[in-house]
């Protein structure tokens, strides 16, 4: 029975919405009520729209108020804002290829490093692929017995090739070692921890002879001085950096800026008052100024650029 409303019906709904609000906000005086009654009775379209409006108003009645309201408010930002961020990511294939540099040197002995804001792809001697995220440093130690990477700083993605000599492939960090079991995975290291996320197949994380853990595709784990943390599921943020984007899912602003700050020189920080604000969206890391602009456009935030290298994010007044 119900088809999409006609323009005349839409207009009646617009008026009904005004009346709905007027009646809800007005002190209970007869005057307002009488005017509404007149509007209501003057046109069958008005009566129909009013019925719809009341049904719409009542349809939220059954929900547990606090729970529903706090969930929706905390999830904050509208879908459109998530979309805006994603549009930046998906819209231009340009981001995906920007900043990629291929290095096909077959022989190497020196350290591999990437500059701030750079991503570098390197083909290793065995055919494995190594992608370095911004500001990362890796030593490559291949010999007759093993294929080992030493990750000193930053984040890498490893896509291992099978080795005719069947040498094991591993990534060592100062917190522990990740042994590839034929696979694609990322390893990141910072001052306190390392984190490994498995994209394909599996890896084994080992801190020492007794603390070991097998991790399968779709899982990630942090490990550090305190041991191996709980296994968590990968989310969209895990693989995104290789495409030059940073995906945030309800990430506190302070943390988002810390991550984004790795892609740009200088100081990027925020007012402590907004550090906890939950941000979701996708931000281009190849152009972190564009990411900041997106942040400003989608959330109630202002980006203050004191100098090119000193940027602070505050609440928009």
């Amino acid at each position, binding site marked *: 029975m119900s088809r999409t409303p006609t323009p005349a019906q839409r207009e009646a709904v617009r008026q009904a919405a005004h009346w709905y*609000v007027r009646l*809800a906000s007005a002190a209970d005086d007869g005057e307002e009520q009488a005017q509404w009654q007149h509007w209501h009775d003057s046109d069958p379209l008005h009566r129909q729209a009013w019925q719809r409006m009341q049904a719409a108003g009542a349809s939220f009645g059954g929900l547990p108020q606090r729970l529903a309201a706090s969930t*929706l408010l905390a999830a904050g930002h509208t879908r459109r804002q998530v979309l805006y961020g994603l549009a930046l990511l998906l819209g231009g294939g340009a981001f995906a290829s920007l900043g990629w540099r291929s290095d096909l040197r077959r022989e190497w002995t020196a350290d591999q490093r990437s500059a701030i804001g750079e991503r570098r792809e390197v083909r290793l001697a065995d055919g494995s692929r190594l992608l370095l995220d911004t500001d990362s440093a890796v030593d490559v130690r291949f010999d007759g017995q093993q294929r080992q990477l030493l990750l000193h700083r930053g984040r890498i993605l490893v896509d291992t090739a099978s080795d005719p000599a069947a040498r094991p492939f591993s990534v060592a960090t100062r917190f522990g070692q990740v042994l590839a079991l034929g696979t694609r995975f990322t390893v990141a290291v910072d001052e306190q921890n390392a984190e490994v996320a498995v994209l394909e197949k599996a890896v084994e994380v080992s801190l020492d002879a007794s603390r070991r853990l097998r991790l399968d595709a779709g899982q990630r784990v942090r490990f550090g001085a305190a041991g191996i943390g709980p296994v968590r599921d990968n989310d969209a943020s895990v693989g995104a950096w290789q495409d030059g984007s940073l995906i945030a899912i309800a990430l506190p602003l302070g943390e988002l800026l810390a991550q984004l700050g790795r892609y740009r020189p200088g100081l990027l920080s925020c007012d402590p008052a907004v550090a906890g604000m939950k941000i979701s969206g996708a931000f281009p890391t190849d152009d972190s100024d564009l990411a900041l602009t997106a942040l400003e456009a989608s959330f109630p935030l202002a980006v203050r650029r004191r100098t090119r290298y000193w940027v602070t994010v505050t609440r928009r007044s």
Partner: protein
Amino acid sequence: MSAEPPALSCAVGALYVEHSPWLHGWLRKRMGNHCDVADLVQDTFVKLLKARSALDIREPRHYLSTVAKGLMIDLFRRRSLEQAYLEALASLPPAQVPSSEAQAMLFETLVELDHMLAGLGAKVREVFILAQLDGLPYAQIATRLGISLRTVNNHMAKAMEHVCLMQWDAGE
């Protein structure tokens, strides 16, 4: 359940065989997570089957990636709602925590509601939630958000109009 016209399911089947590995790769590059990717590939083709437009798609990959992109955004949005919901649940006094079945149903309702409010601006949405879900009087909302009562009224009217039309369009 209505049977699909054979031509349609054939067309979708052909698209699936030819393009699903590509779509899989496209999504994996963007998401990294194996399980989600496989689900989204399936969902994309299910959507295609429901839309019944598979017979006249000129650029299948463009079309598939557009559909998959929409589904991916829905998924992200759902994840962030999920997180907010779990946090809200955790902050309730134990006596007020609903049963797990009720929790699940409520969450689905919130996802729908969130979707319904998606077209509104952030402030309009906030006013609507505070008034309609939290039950705050308009004057209190004005004080809390630091806007005039008149603005609260305008935002509310806009939100009610939107919600009413959404429900009407949805055939409720």
